[in-house]
């Protein structure tokens, strides 16, 4: 018998006659969006020591320009599909991922600018699904600075709403604040291998 058949036979013998259980789902499921979600998301992301801005659609490009300038970003990776209207007209060198950047190239970029797929207000999380304006997973991993633009209609109140909106067939990265560790005396310290600075721009729908 193959290892597979042996393991499956062991499992069947082990659970024979064991009654099945019903799964109670009395916990909070997806909830309708409310106006308070923008502020809740901003607060919770700030709790992780990330920088958060809340702006109207018309102010995004100017805010992105200010943030890049304040950080001194010269070489910025901008994935395909990032909305042109949110991009400042100049002040930085725009790097695309076509043809694919090498890991070494990415490592020397000053920053990465992306959109996201979903955000979770209650946990201060943004989720990337490698879709339009986000690019493949390594893009938001190697540069030390990640600037992410979130639209208000992408914000879910809790985790169940976000899980329901996401497509498991896509590679997903849930990001809650900058890279951190709790390994030294169980204190959270920001900044290990991932981007040490996370900046989030929340765009309100007027």
């Amino acid at each position, binding site marked *: 018998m193959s290892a597979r058949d042996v393991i499956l036979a062991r499992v069947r013998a082990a659970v024979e006659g064991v009654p099945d259980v019903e799964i109670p789902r009395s916990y909070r499921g997806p909830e309708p969006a409310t106006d308070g979600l923008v502020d809740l998301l901003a607060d919770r992301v700030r709790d992780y020591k990330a920088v958060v801005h809340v702006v109207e659609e018309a102010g995004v490009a100017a805010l992105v320009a200010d943030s890049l300038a304040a950080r001194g970003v010269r070489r910025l990776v901008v994935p395909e599909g990032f909305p042109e209207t949110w991009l400042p007209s100049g002040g930085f060198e725009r790097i695309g991922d076509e043809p694919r950047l090498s890991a070494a190239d990415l490592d020397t970029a000053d920053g990465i600018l992306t959109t996201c797929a979903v955000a979770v207000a209650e946990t201060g999380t943004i989720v990337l699904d490698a879709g339009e304006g986000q690019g493949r997973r390594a893009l938001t991993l190697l540069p030390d600075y990640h600037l992410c633009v979130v639209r208000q209609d992408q914000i879910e109140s809790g985790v169940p709403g976000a899980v329901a909106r996401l497509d498991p*067939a896509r590679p997903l990265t849930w990001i809650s604040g900058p890279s951190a560790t709790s390994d*030294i005396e169980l204190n959270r310290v920001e900044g290990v291998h991932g981007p040490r600075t996370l900046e989030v721009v929340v765009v309100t729908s007027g």
Partner: protein
Amino acid sequence: MSRTFLGMPGTVSMMGYSGKETFPENAAKAVRNSQLRFNLRKATGTIRGRRASVVGELPDWPDLRQAGKAIKDHTLRNLDTYLVRLEEAVTKAGGHVHWARDAAEANRIVTDLVKATGETQVVKVKSMATQEIGLNEALHAEGITAYETDLAELIVQLGDDWPSHILVPAIHRNRSEIREIFVRHMSEWGRPAPERLTDEPAALAEAARLHLRERFLATKVAISGANFMVAETGTLVVLESEGNGRMCLTLPETLISVVGIEKLVPTWRDLEVFLQLLPRSSTGERMNPYTSMWTGATEGQEFHLVLLDNGRTGVLADDLGRQALRCIRCSACLNVCPVYERSGGHAYGSVYPGPIGAILTPQLRGMGSELDRSLPYASSLCGACYEVCPVAIDIPSVLIELRGRSRHPVAERAGMAAAGWVFKRQGRLARAQRMGGRMRRLVPKRLPGPLGGWTDTRDLPAIPKESFRDWWNRTDGGAR
């Protein structure tokens, strides 16, 4: 420190100490180490407070806990169905699925996969399963170097040390000890520690970032575990903090994940429960910094999944003990345990320390050694572990059951047999009670011979002059 396989030939093998000494002997040594006690008290105290505050934020925590428990029980009951479903989904998404009956088979599969790539170096994401099977040692024997990339695992690997906590393997080390390890040993493994390194946690984290950066960019094979596998979609999930997990999961050309068969959940939706339960229970955060989810071969990567039994089906066959397989390795039970807080993780002699280790290790490894027989006693049965467990594993009940199954000392067995004989007939009990009442002034505070072990940690109850039955008969229930 010697690293040996503990398992008996033909049964499950699992990494651990040489296993000559029992938990009480190990613990007695550990509590004399005041630095260790200080480090543990500080760390577990911090994390207990954080966990309590973020768990308290969720009004539906008890509902999530019940759902988490039920999802795991349902999965275990139908594990065969869901394993086959997972295999189909992963294969359909371009991944390769391998099955390993035991540690040796899993190690051989992984070694062969690495050899097939022609590489001699791999990067690793922290994984309990690969520690359990001693994968790093098995790879080393075949000329392959495994580099741990989690900060705490790095501290343990550089210090030639043993992990002492499920989530924070270097919890027994404080910042100045970590600095010492970095300064002394980083150069043996790659880029040396920066000059004038301080013991500030941020500086230590920066040193780890620099030490591992080039390794991440250059290594072509990575090995991981997984926190969850979704049967319906074939998705694997890894929760982490530092980004070392993302580095390993994303950059290398080949990814090999070794995962215990109990890590399954049936549906995508089930993650909505566990993504709330796990981070709040483990690091005491609303959400951990990074969670990666991928399905099959992703972004051009070659993907292999090794499904590991290694004793799990044996635990599954046990009506009471199988609940240990619900464990999602959050380590909340370690952080609240008064015994763990004082003894530390090394005393348990297993990669699974603390309350969950005390029920998991003897079930996976068997109770052949003195150490493994002593583990069910590494508890005061206070029940704090059960209270914080996000999947409601009734650890105290399993501990008591395992105590019942382990071989007891001669004196205890003789004492219990004698008590059984006395209690069997009412007349015998009455005579014994009258004799006890007459001789009560002669009973010493410490019992003689091997029975002394019992009174060393307990007071003998005072023996009354007269038994309740005799009093009732004499006074007609207090009427006379």
